[in-house]
């Protein structure tokens, strides 16, 4: 796809003194130590023509192979000579050209630099973003040229910043001072790096002061992003805890089943997602990006079905004996784990984020909200609302609550308790499956998936107050934000310990959870 675009824009920005790509240049870029390759690349880029651009692009796309000292550009299973463009047979022993990180970033930069003068605003924007932190002096003329030509104010500002960042390394004191002044308005974290680096080498006292002032300003404007970022990560963790706990809030909170297999029901949801992904890869590769939409109901149904089977075969004999449910569901969880090991293997399986869930929105210079986290937060809210509606507003919900409180009397009222129990357990399990589906987007999918979350899930449900949906929400969000707040402060290990201790202390104050049921009905 990118190759198709290539011809389009390659014609747009041929430098005035461009000259054709030579075989030596190609060899220089391909062979040898990374540093010399980089040098050769940058040299070639300065005088790039269409072919050079195409070649650099191919190299960046890993579409270049070598055999002996011959270089081939591979396109649509055919090999071409990069210099002449003639098609050539690809030798059997052709090997990929390996581009280490450094080379890769230089390739990107070179390509971006070439795009700086593009007519397409979008391309320029991307190019500026890619070049962002690069302050290679050799690129100064190019950037100044782009700056002069730029018409979009926002981009012009950014180019100016880039220019200033490079000028910071200039030998002219006045220029450095000016650059420092300019940079103080930046909201880009990369600016901070540049300033710090310069501060390390700067000798002139005045410039130093200016640099320090600029640094302070930049840091101040970045601080906001940090704070918001911390809150966001707290909410994001909270939403995961919430998802993990919601299903349990039904099976345990409402039905009183100490469901140790809850984690494994999530695991089933996650594996269902994995299977759906596999099916899409195989049968619907074109629609692969939308596999997740199909996976959500499948995950729900898979776990719900498993939940229904468990309820029918085991759990229903144990109502009113909550502690026995602990034992039985523990057994179930062992078996389910081993089942997954037998079927899928003991190792983790890979679940990919669809493209639309990769990346994120840039809110501030140093704060970008990843799409997959945003989607999960949204998903958690949706599940919460759906469940709240189902439990609080529908007859099914009423029956579930009634049946779990007094099974024999509910049946005397004409409620088919057995069926309601099955529905309710299946619903809780299905929601666990949804949580598993969501977790597959941020973490492992493996036989241990459930074990990692079961303790947290119980903490959330209990902390919120058993049987209190609103409490579950508060507990999840509270724990999420508290955890992230402490983590920024004390490190992950101590934060986790502190959170647990806080839970213990909190329960002393509220022995029935956040949303304690008060009054007589609590005892009944």
């Amino acid at each position, binding site marked *: 796809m990118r190759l198709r675009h290539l011809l389009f824009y390659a014609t747009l920005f041929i430098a005035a003194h461009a000259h054709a790509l030579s075989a030596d240049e190609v060899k220089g870029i391909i062979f040898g130590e990374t540093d010399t390759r980089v040098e050769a690349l940058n040299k070639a880029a300065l005088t790039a023509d269409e072919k050079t651009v195409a070649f650099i692009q191919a190299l960046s796309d890993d579409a270049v192979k070598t055999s002996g000292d011959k270089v081939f550009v591979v396109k649509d299973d055919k090999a071409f000579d990069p210099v002449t463009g003639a098609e050539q047979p690809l030798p059997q022993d052709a090997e990929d050209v390996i581009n280490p990180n450094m080379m890769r970033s230089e390739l990107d930069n070179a390509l971006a630099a070439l795009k700086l003068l593009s007519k397409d605003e979008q391309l320029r924007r991307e190019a500026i973003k890619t070049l962002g932190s690069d302050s290679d002096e050799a690129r100064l003329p190019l950037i100044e040229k782009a700056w002069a030509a730029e018409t979009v104010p926002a981009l012009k500002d950014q180019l100016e910043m880039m220019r200033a960042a490079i000028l910071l390394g200039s030998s002219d004191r006045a220029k450095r001072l000016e650059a420092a002044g300019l940079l103080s308005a930046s909201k880009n974290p990369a600016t901070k790096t540049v300033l710090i680096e310069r501060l390390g080498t700067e000798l002139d006292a005045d410039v130093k002061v200016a640099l320090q002032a600029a640094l302070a300003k930049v840091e101040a404007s970045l601080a906001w992003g940090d704070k918001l970022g911390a809150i966001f990560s707290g909410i994001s963790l909270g939403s995961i805890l919430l998802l993990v706990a919601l299903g349990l809030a039904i099976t345990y909170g409402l039905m009183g089943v100490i469901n140790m297999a809850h984690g494994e029901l999530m695991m089933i949801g996650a594996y269902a997602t994995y299977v759906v992904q596999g099916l899409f890869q195989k049968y619907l590769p074109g629609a692969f990006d939308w596999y997740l939409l199909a996976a959500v109901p499948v995950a729900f149904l898979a776990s719900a079905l498993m939940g229904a089977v468990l309820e029918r075969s085991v759990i229903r004999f144990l109502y009113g*004996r909550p*502690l026995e449910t602990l034992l039985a569901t523990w057994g179930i969880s062992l*078996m389910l784990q*081993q089942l997954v090991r037998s079927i899928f293997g003991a190792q983790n399986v890979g679940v990919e984020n669809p493209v639309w869930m990769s990346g994120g929105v840039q809110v501030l210079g140093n704060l970008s909200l990843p799409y997959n986290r945003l989607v999960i937060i949204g998903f958690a809210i949706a599940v919460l609302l759906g469940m709240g509606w189902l439990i609080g507003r529908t007859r099914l919900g009423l029956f579930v609550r009634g049946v779990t409180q007094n099974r024999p009397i509910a049946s005397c009222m004409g409620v088919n308790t057995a069926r309601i129990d099955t529905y309710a357990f299946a619903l809780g399990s299905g929601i666990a499956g949804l949580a598993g589906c969501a977790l597959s987007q941020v973490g492992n999918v493996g036989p241990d998936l459930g074990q990692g979350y079961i303790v947290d899930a119980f*903490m959330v449900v209990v*902390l919120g107050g*058993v049987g209190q949906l609103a409490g579950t929400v508060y507990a999840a969000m509270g724990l999420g934000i508290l955890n992230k707040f402490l983590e920024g402060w004390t490190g992950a290990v101590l934060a986790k310990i502190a959170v647990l201790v806080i839970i*213990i202390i909190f329960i002393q104050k509220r022995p029935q959870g956040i949303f304690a049921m008060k009054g007589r009905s609590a005892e009944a």
Partner: protein
Amino acid sequence: MSTPFPTINDSLLAEQGTDLAPKVPAQARPPAPSSPGRVELPGKGPLLTRSGWSAFVIALIVVCAVAPVLNLWVPEGHALHLSTYAVALLGKIMCYAICALAMDLIWGYTGILSLGHGVFFALGGYTMGMYLMRQIGADGNYKSNLPDFMVFLDWKELPWHWTFSDSFVATLILIVAVPGIVAFVFGYFAFRSRIKGVYFSIITQAMTFAAMLLFFRNETGFGGNNGFTDFKRILDIPIATPSMRMTLFVMTGLTLLGFFLFAKWLVGSKFGRVLQAIRDAETRVMFSGYSPLGYKLTIWVISAVMCGVAGALYVPQVGIINPGEMSPANSIEIAIWAAVGGRASLIGPIVGAFIVNGAKSWLTVAYPEFWLYFLGALFIGVTLFLPNGVVGLVKKLRKGAEQ
């Protein structure tokens, strides 16, 4: 008994004989109770029944005499030889059985499900482990008087909490005191705040989880994830000798039997019945004039100390203690042993510990890839078909046989 104020009884006795002539119309007068005048009150049962005592004595003999003879004197290869491996395994399971017994006291009899007993087990274990580490002396990798991991972490002297670790007597005291005090403090606040049911279970779980993370940290001074291993001596006697192993085994057995008798006595007393009453209706207990706090706290601490002692016996036998013992799953397992054997029966949890761990040891070798299915099925089967655990089944069968 004399009460300082008149009781219902006194008031009746006082007027006895003065006028017993019925004044109520005949048909409304209550007839004499259907039973003869004397009401048969159940007497206080013996600590153990006759067959109970004989079983107990047999167990005692097995632990103190049969096992040592079979292990130490019957030559290897002989059909009757009890292998070192078996001794180690049985010793370990007996430690677990003590935990299960402790769990039964707090869960089966008092209705308080602790999901954090692993902590007490580990505390006892760590206390013992510290002593054993000190006994290594300068024989470690780094030839220092400090335990290896400290040398390695650049510690120059023992941290404060290791102060008494070189004294065996102090260690013995601490094995009881440390879990006891931790349990007391934790229990005091929790019970005082009237934390009950799952809320209590969850904070015990939080406690063990937090403790585990704490002990995982290298800075905490307990060897981090690796914990303590490579013990060499106990009381300056090499630990890895058959006779030492046997000694530890016998001691574990005696402890288990002793705790069993103690627990039996405890639950047979009125104290035990108050515990059960707390389990059934705590409010009623309070309105009957008992303060549940003291009762709960007492049994909680007793239970924790038992676990601590089990941990202390466990460490020299298995040769390692690490924070994994405090993982929530381990604590849940203790509850599971108790449930499998049968709660609120004392012998049940012991049987449960043997069955579950025996099955585990056997199955992990016999069916290394499938054993979890068997174990899981065992748990489900027990709950579905043996609501009172294995012991419940035995009781039922015996009842059936009698009829």
